[in-house]
């Protein structure tokens, strides 16, 4: 066997059923790592040697070139194209990951982001030479404020969790300014929250106090009141919540929070359900991050880059971090110097995710106010259509009632079948679908959270629902045994995650025999 687990002897494997000599299966390659076939003396970039010059490196020149293999362009293109074919993607199929909002990524937005006037400008070139970029940031801000009904926006956070951090820092700064830093050290977080919420609060020194949800999956104003006190700085509430439900008592919760002298942080991960329908500012929110990569469709890119601008109420606006935009003459200027402002600090170098602003703004312009509202309505309609199409076979933890943009099932319908939510999810892979979000939110046992988004046609939803029903019926008829070992048709079978964690192999090394060869 060689490093890729491939036979080295002709004829050794070819006769075994379903095995190929190369390890490939038709279009699907068995692709080695670049370290296994690249050569250190090869480069795919032609660079002309400079003429003679006197180096100015002091005594800090390195010895020899870095130990990294190179590939020529044809080799590199083939390698990465082959890798790409082992990935599922929105472009290739329905991607019903609840809470993640895998909607279509318009290619126009990619084209716009690559205009040299946006892609090829430096964050520190004179502002006088980047007026268009500043105008775009200003217009994007205007749209975000208009859609949310808030007073100010901090554009710079680089992802949703980074936006949470920014919003909670603004809250902390406001509390410090009130002289209550010692007193208000607690942040209320419902059990159903994203893990980032408690992690963010803890990162900047808050204690987390859990708030239980009611039997219907909603947070009660009464429960919030019971948890509030002079020690509470803020509540972090996701709305619509992670169960796909709109928090009905949100206005009363906001009032209670404000009465207690605390702030209302809204996790805007699910803002895409309510754009054009209601405004967080009208609901009493003080800070909310907006995942541009969810609601406004900048590509997820296999796990980033995202963008997480934070909108702020008048109570927090002054504490927004630098840099921010200020009206100046008939244009805007970037304020980068903290002195003479109340800004709590800086979230990152430069001005945030400009490449994502461009994409999100192109998305907004394309949709317009009418299209954005229609997108929210279609997202909610599609989720409810799935609910209506599956409700007789699948179980809903909080009963059969309308949901927002995502529908939540639990695993009670799998009781006594010997199969788990994970088995079901893996069986869905064999049917050509990316699984839904599973085991989240944590408060629901064996959760299956399905978010179809507005990008799916009725025909696509119908086929998905028929597939879900077929799998469920197979289980109910006792034919679910193969699901234990699913997926069967994916590039890999289930992977040994325990081994990965217990004996971490986090980079390729030449001497260690590969795991496949052991």
């Amino acid at each position, binding site marked *: 066997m060689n490093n890729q687990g491939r036979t080295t002897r002709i004829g050794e494997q070819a006769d075994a059923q379903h095995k190929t000599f190369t390890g490939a299966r038709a279009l699907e390659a068995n692709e080695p790592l670049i370290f296994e076939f690249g050569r250190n003396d090869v480069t795919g970039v032609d660079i002309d040697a400079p003429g003679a010059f006197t180096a100015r490196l002091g005594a800090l020149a390195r010895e020899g070139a870095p130990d990294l293999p190179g590939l020529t362009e044809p080799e590199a293109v083939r390698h990465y194209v082959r890798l790409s074919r082992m990935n599922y993607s929105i472009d290739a199929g329905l991607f019903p990951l609840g809470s993640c909002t895998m909607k279509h990524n318009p290619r126009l937005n990619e084209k716009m982001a690559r205009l040299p006037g946006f892609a090829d400008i430096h964050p520190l070139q004179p502002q006088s030479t980047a007026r268009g970029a500043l105008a775009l940031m200003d217009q994007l801000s205007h749209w975000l404020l208009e859609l949310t009904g808030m007073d100010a926006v901090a554009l710079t956070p680089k992802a949703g969790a980074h936006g949470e951090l920014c919003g909670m820092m603004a809250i902390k700064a406001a509390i410090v300014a009130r002289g209550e830093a010692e007193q208000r050290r607690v942040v209320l977080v419902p059990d159903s929250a994203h893990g980032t919420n408690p992690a963010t609060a803890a990162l900047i020194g808050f204690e987390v106090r859990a708030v239980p949800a009611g039997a219907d999956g909603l947070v009660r104003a009464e429960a919030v009141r019971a948890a509030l006190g002079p020690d509470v700085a803020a509540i972090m509430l996701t709305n619509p919540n992670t169960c796909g439900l709109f928090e009905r008592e949100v206005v009363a919760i906001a009032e209670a929070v404000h009465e207690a002298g605390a702030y209302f942080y809204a996790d805007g991960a699910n803002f895409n359900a*309510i754009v054009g329908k209601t405004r967080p500012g009208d609901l009493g929110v003080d800070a909310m991050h907006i995942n541009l990569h969810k609601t406004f469709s900048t590509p997820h890119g296999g796990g980033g880059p995202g963008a997480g601008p934070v909108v702020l109420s008048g109570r927090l606006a002054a504490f927004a971090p630098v840099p921010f935009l200020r009206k100046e003459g008939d244009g805007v200027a970037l304020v980068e110097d903290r002195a003479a402002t109340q800004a709590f600090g800086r979230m990152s170098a430069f001005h945030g995710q400009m490449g994502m602003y461009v994409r999100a703004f192109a998305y907004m312009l394309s949709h317009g106010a009418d299209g954005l509202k229609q997108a929210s309505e279609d997202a909610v309609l599609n989720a409810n259509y799935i609910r209506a199409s599956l409700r007789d076979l699948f179980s809903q933890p909080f009963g059969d009632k309308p949901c927002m943009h995502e529908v939540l099932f639990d695993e009670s319908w799998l009781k006594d079948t010997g199969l788990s939510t994970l088995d079901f999810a893996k069986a869905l892979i064999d049917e050509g679908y990316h699984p839904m979000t599973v085991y989240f939110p944590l408060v629901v046992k064996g959760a299956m959270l399905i978010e179809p988004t507005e990008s799916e046609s009725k025909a696509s939803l119908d086929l998905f629902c028929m597939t879900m029903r077929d799998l469920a019926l197979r289980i109910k008829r006792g034919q679910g045994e193969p699901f234990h070992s699913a997926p069967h048709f994916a590039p890999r079978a289930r992977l040994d995650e325990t081994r990965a964690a217990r004996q971490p192999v986090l980079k390729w090394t030449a001497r260690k025999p590969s795991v496949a060869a052991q």
Partner: protein
Amino acid sequence: MRYLPLTQQERADMLARIGVAGIDDLFADIPKEKLLTALPDLPRRKSEMEVERLMGALAARNVAAGGVPFFCGAGAYKHHIPASVDHIIQRSEFLTSYTPYQPEIAQGTLQYLFEFQTQVARLTQMDVANASMYDGSTGCAEAVLMAHRVTRRRKAIVSGGLHPHYVETTRTVSDMAGDALVALPPDVRASEDIIAAIDKDTSCVVVQTPDVFGNLRDLAPIAAACQAQGALLIAVFTEAVSLGLVKPPGAMGADIVVGEGQSIGNALNFGGPYVGLFATRDKYVRQMPGRLAGETVDARGQRGFVLTLSTREQHIRREKATSNICTNSGLCALAFTIHMTLLGGRGLAELARVNHANAVKLAEALARVPNVEVVNRSFFNEFTLRTPGEAATLVEKMAARGVLAGVPVSRLAPNAGLDDLLIVANTEINTDDDRAAFVAALQGALAR
């Protein structure tokens, strides 16, 4: 609307299947008085052509780096990106996939992250690298938090050569978390005595090389001093191409290495998205922030990759997590990996040599210009120029002459009394004509 597939008839049929009379029945949980009755006061939908026209007009109001002699650096660098890089990262399977939570159908992403981690570890000569951070500055703040966890101390000492935005980003997190941060004043000539500042309470020392003024710093003595006091050395770089020519931080004793990876594979983008590189020693891996891809096997015995050591992370640990980070900078990491793979170690060394040579040529030309002075004793592809007046004014004057001359230090450190300093970068994109244009524009601007 071109992105919304449902027809009106289909919408009606679907509402009927759901069993509601109208769409607003599905929004019934929103308090009635809070439901918007009118559309937001914003323009209506636009065709693709109209959007292109509007966006194109905005883009046209910016001066693109590729269109003029261009010398801006200070943490973001204009390099040539091979055409194949941008082509591959736009493949649907990379562009429109999610964080690889279902590894059976995400091996493409997981394998390139594993390659990325290996490349970063080798480039920095460290044991292990993560699957990337948002950017260099946020990585720097995370590195300091990590050092506090490792050492159980809460005081960081920050070099005056660290990029001021990195200092501010790190200070913001430190202040909010209630940790101590001692930042030495901006150190243009790399003459500070940071070793004297290290004591038994020091958790970590943060030093950038090449520093923000372009000076190369020898980390070895600082590493030794850190070790003697039980502190960690965090090495920072903002120009990844420098590692093709200068001694890597791992070879000088760094415990954590943080870098901005934008230079390799990623466009300037007015500051983001970029990609943070983060590497450390094996013994600290469980205190590391961010995502990690690891090798394992599948049920058929085939090699495969998964996200691993996730018990450090927020979705498992919640308030006890090592960081609140939920994503990496996946697509930018892919761009880095492809470009790095095309270069290889040999190509990177050649590229770095051209960068250095170009900077030396400009420094030599400037040595012949009266009233300006290159401050640095050593540099890679960027140096600091002392000018007779305010560098910011000079930059505006040179911009008016069609040259983007660099970054005035006052832009980064506005109240430091360093208004006469200009940070000037040269990369492989700069030609002899560009450098001649720089000198001419400088002399013209100084003459008036």
